[in-house]
């Protein structure tokens, strides 16, 4: 659809996310990790996120460099804590990058369509659709309520909130939950009247299909692991 930009199947992106997590769980060698991150950066550039791609690569390389220097020191308290922190950044970075890639390059409809393809039960898909749909509204509602509280002089400053934390919670959540009850009813009405409960197989308009680039990504990742796995 968008010219010049590579489109990957959401399932491939999910795979990348899982790999990133796998790296976090089973700390494999730096080489595997570095290759994976660079690969992600390339994918980002190809998908039209060149800024993030380049910055990500530069950032990661500098982190590796700093980490190397820190590790070279003797492990006194100071260097140990610094070492832990830098390890934190280094190890988390692949996850954050993969998450960013997956989320910013995929439409909600594509996630939903691929879940349907993966045969997720409707008991999961429908609430998840509602979550995606409703979360921006909840956020907007939250700001409306905070504004309304300002007019009334309730919990305006941080100090007010610390003084009466539980009352603040009540004043935020009661209007939120009240309006949620109505929204749930309205959303039910609109979806039921459009046949959401039909027992026949639902069709899917959004295209999600494995294409050449998806196979290439899977192939490259598996190659990286085959070559450098564990090192």
């Amino acid at each position, binding site marked *: 659809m968008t010219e010049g930009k590579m489109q990957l199947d959401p399932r491939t992106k999910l795979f990348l996310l899982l790999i990133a997590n796998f790296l976090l769980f089973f700390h494999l060698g730096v080489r595997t990790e570095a290759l994976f991150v660079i690969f992600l950066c390339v994918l980002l550039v190809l998908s039209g996120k060149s800024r993030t791609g380049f910055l990500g690569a530069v950032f990661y390389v500098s982190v590796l460099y700093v980490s190397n220097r820190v590790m070279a020191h003797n492990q006194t308290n100071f260097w140990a804590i610094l070492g832990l922190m830098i390890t934190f950044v280094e190890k988390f970075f692949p996850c954050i990058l993969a998450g960013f890639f997956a989320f910013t390059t995929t439409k909600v409809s594509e996630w939903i369509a691929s879940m349907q393809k993966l045969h997720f039960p409707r008991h999961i898909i429908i609430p998840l659709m509602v979550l995606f749909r409703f979360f921006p509204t909840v956020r907007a509602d939250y700001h409306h309520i905070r504004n309304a509280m*300002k*007019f009334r002089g309730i919990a305006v400053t941080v100090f007010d909130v610390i003084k009466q934390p539980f009352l603040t919670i009540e004043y935020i959540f009661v209007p939120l939950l009240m309006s949620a009850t109505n929204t749930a009813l309205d959303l039910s009405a609109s979806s039921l009247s459009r046949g959401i409960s039909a027992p026949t197989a639902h069709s899917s308009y959004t295209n999600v299909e494995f294409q050449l680039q998806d196979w290439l990504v899977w192939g490259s990742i598996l190659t990286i692991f085959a070559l450098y796995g564990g090192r």
Partner: protein
Amino acid sequence: MITLEQLAFSYEQSAQSLRPLDLSIKEGECLVLCGKSGCGKTTFTRIINGLIPELYEGKLTGKGTVAGVKIGEAEIYEFAQKVGSVFQNPKTQFFTTEVRTELVFGCENLGIEKEEIERRLRETVAVFPIEQLLEKNMFQLSGGQKQMIAFAAAYMQQPDIFVLDEPSSNLDYQTIQLLGEQIAKLKKAGKTIIIAEHRLYYLKQLADRFLWLEQGQIKQLFSQEEFACLSESELHVKGLRTLRLEKMKRKQQHVQHAKLEEKLVIQQLTHRYQKKGQTVLEELNLTLSNQAIYGIVGSNGVGKTTLMQIICGLIKPSKGTIRLQGQVLKQRQLLKLSYLVMQDVNYQLFCETVEKELLLKATEPELFEEVVKSLNLQLLLKRHPMTLSGGQKQRVAVASALLSGKKIILFDEPTSGLDAYHMEQVSKLFGLLQRKGRFVLLVSHDVEFLAKTVQQIVHLQDKKMTQKTITEIPENGWYTIFK
């Protein structure tokens, strides 16, 4: 197309009900349901689209069929193939986050093949003015655009019958015109259309029959001609809104002024959005008096909300000053002095009883008795605010503003979805605030309401503003200010 025999319904959880009624609606007919809030017109639409008794539970008796589907027996998805629905609130009726998926959602549910969906999509884009919206996200759209998408989404299901429940409630003048045009197209295509509505002026040429309901009962059935003959005062008695917007008279009220005139002077007000750096308001100068009620009008995105937020101290303008009686007010002082009654009042009620709500942070509790009496809240003091009707909630919010000594009271769309009676109540409420010497400003799309209520119009357009007293607006020309 639709036949109802002794059909009746009562809700499980509320006192509202629909008394037994007999009615048949022909194919290609356009029927308008009208009457006061709570008269049963929404209930009627819910029976036709099958949401009763599946979603709204209660006792359904009698018999009826809708395009061959049996009321009360058939599953709701069977209705979905015959009836397309549009609801009142544009914000809560879209189910997906993108325009395109929203349009095809119904077809996907009904298992329609992709090629057929494509074909329908092309057809729908030809009928509805939505082509430039297709690639957008639902959250980027204005209320009017969302409503148009909802209508188009119903059309995608290719139903024989359309059911519209107060579709114009949240729309501006121009979008209502557009809505009327779409209804006309469907009618021409031979669709059966049922509309529950408060605003009637845009339907008088479209509807074949008008069904007037009161307390769940059919009071009278009018043909188009008969209905057009009703005078404004006859409509008024029935609790209906005007049929003749183009002849709206400027109402020269006998304004009871506050004893002391005060002035709020806005000078050189400029505002840019922080993120995009885009200028919304440029060098506005405006003098407001507490002797008049001000209506702020203008099309979507012209900065009405921004102006209101600046006046009530929610945001700080990039440039400019606001003075009350010569004294410059800082943002924090404005916030203290003003109160915005939001379109959705639910956000601003916090307590478990009306009484506590009114006294929460009240700075002038000694006025309690007087305020309660003048806003007619005596009987509601022990109720939970959320169990009140929309109009009652609005009054509670205003009462709390008065008790906290607010000088400037702003309203955002105070009449969306109100019938004639409640609209007039809001109008009276404004008069009361004015007598108490408050500054009253409101943003509204509701032409009929503006004509009956305000004395000054502030028209925003292209970052600029023009101010008019209503006497400057030509006779018969009320709606021209929206063009």
